[in-house]
């Protein structure tokens, strides 16, 4: 008997797109140019941002005529132009809703043009419930072209499954509608955090950030360590970071190394590595285990990045300070029991195209408040 799938509950607020997810994945795979096969405005904002990271994004600019008559010729033309103009070593072609609905075959253009560099084709549109689908599809194609290993593919797939679950449990996919919220006032939260530090309370300082967003989230952990040091309580703080540079796609390893080097140079001591930059959905479990073994009696914890991926088991009695970049993450975090939630608005764009830690507002606030101490 046919088995009915459980009906997924409706989610009304806009959520990340699988087309964009495919684009970011191609960047992580060190793709030089990506052709978006579709209308000129599709994924514009992220296409633009990714150029800051050195990956070029171009579009076949399908219009009404293209929708009706097909976009094969346009794709061939753009592919040829891309090869001539940019001389790329690796090309990506990414579908859009429009081109996929009308049945465009990305591969036909590749067969016709026959580029002598690898082309990663991703037949993706944005009609998937979980944007991680776009990542999986890009990785599948990379696997098929021999760019990543089977083992890395399986590793990534398992992580993405976890990431999807994290969002379902306490993230953007956890409710029918999530109201955006700017979080608590930064100076008030900073005041309370400094108060605890000055009282000699013991604190955990955890970075669990997704990929390049760590360039700014790390600044918060750095600031916490710095102000504690300045106030004479540096030894009360334990630092845990997901900056393992031996795992993940090339860019993620590179970024982990860069952030680690910066932290070291600024005198930040890493007590525990809890995973790599792409392991944010599971690194929280590693942190949880370490906390259970060694630090369950600590008084407070600062968690930056993806705080909702950290299980509450061993931290539920601590005063929690979490820093996120998602205005829709505030309410779920509060509901989990995080006392203070700070939002670093527009964090992601500022972490593209950088190779050093970027100053955060909350970090700057903390530093400012102990300036004269």
């Amino acid at each position, binding site marked *: 008997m*046919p*088995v*009915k*799938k459980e*009906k997924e509950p409706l989610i009304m607020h806009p959520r990340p797109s699988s087309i964009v997810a495919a684009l970011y994945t191609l960047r992580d795979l060190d793709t030089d140019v990506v052709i978006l096969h579709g209308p000129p405005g599709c994924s514009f904002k992220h296409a633009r941002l990714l150029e800051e990271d050195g990956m070029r994004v171009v579009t076949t600019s399908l219009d009404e005529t293209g929708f009706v008559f*097909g976009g094969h010729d346009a794709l061939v033309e753009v592919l040829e132009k891309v090869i001539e103009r940019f001389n790329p070593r690796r090309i990506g072609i990414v579908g859009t809703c429009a081109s*996929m*609905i*009308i*049945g*465009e*075959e990305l591969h*036909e253009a590749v067969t016709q043009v026959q580029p002598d560099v690898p082309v990663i084709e991703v037949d993706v549109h944005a009609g998937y419930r979980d944007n991680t689908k776009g990542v999986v599809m890009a990785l599948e194609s990379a696997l098929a072209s021999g760019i990543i290993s089977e083992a890395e593919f399986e590793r990534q797939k398992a992580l993405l499954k976890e990431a999807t679950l994290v969002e379902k449990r306490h993230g953007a996919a956890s409710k029918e509608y999530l109201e955006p919220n700017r979080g608590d006032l930064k100076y008030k939260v900073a005041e309370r955090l400094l108060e605890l530090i000055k009282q000699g309370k013991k604190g955990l300082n955890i970075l669990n950030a997704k990929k390049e967003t760590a360039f700014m989230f790390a600044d918060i952990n750095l600031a916490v360590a710095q102000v504690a040091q300045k106030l004479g309580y540096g030894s009360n703080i334990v630092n845990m970071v997901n900056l393992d540079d031996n795992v993940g796609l090339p860019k993620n390893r590179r970024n982990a190394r860069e952030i680690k080097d910066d932290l070291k140079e600024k005198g930040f001591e890493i007590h525990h590595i809890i995973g790599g930059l792409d392991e944010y959905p599971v690194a929280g479990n590693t942190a949880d285990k370490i906390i259970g073994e060694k630090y369950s009696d600590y008084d407070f914890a600062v968690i930056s990045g993806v705080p909702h991926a950290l299980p509450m088991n061993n931290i539920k009695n601590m005063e929690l300070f979490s820093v996120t970049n998602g205005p829709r993450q505030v309410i779920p975090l509060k509901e989990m029991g995080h006392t203070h939630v700070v939002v670093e608005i527009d964090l992601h764009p500022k972490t593209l195209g950088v190779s050093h830690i970027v100053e955060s507002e909350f970090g700057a606030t903390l530093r400012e408040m102990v300036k004269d101490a």
Partner: protein
Amino acid sequence: MPKQIAIYGKGGIGKSSTASNVAAACADEGYRVTIIGCDPKSDSSITLLQGRRIPTIMDLMREGIDIKEEDIVFKGYKGVKCLEIGGPEPGIGCAGRGIIVAISLLKKISRAIEDTDLVIYDVPGDIVCGGFVAPVKKGLVNEAYVLTSGEYMPLYAANNICKGLSRLEMTLNGVICNSRGALNEEKIVSEFAKEVGSQLLAFIPKDVLVQTCERDGYSVIEKAPDSQIAAVYRKLAKSIMGKREGKIPVPLDDSRLRELTRI
């Protein structure tokens, strides 16, 4: 790899009748056969299933079923595996996208298109959009056949299909004439086949027996196995299963097509 064929032709010309009779004839010969109806009307396999309608892939998708192979593959006459893609209600949504989604699903979950000797795609008469050529574009079809009568309009459609095939760089492996009783019909279709670079594989005479059997939910192979018309289908089936090279067709211009029907 199994032989994977698609039968094209003007709507109403008899593609489904031909497909199901060829499928039944091949099954009689001991071949493992799969028939996939790609028309939203979902009527390709009905005469192999004693008139029974089977749930289509699109029906199950609409109901939110987690589709498994056993939900969509149904055994018909002599074990012929029958699948229907189906589609949205007429005038709603996008049937072309439906075919694309169904073909991707088939590639993923179905062994019926691999562990078999012959797969027949019964495609809709009019290739109105990109989705309708998905079986060809996704590499699931390696031989194409065109069905036509000797009348001008069906030939016009057949010629158009040749245009499409040549654009897709798909070979044409034979032309089949389903007679409507036009004057000089066999000669006209035979000449058409030759001029587009192919050959006439079979001339199927008009026989009321086909309709009578269909009305009762059977192919002539099953219901009237000793009839003359059954023998014609058997011969065609043999011819399709025999090895033959196809050629990318060269469509005719319209004036030549008109001239041809005046022979």
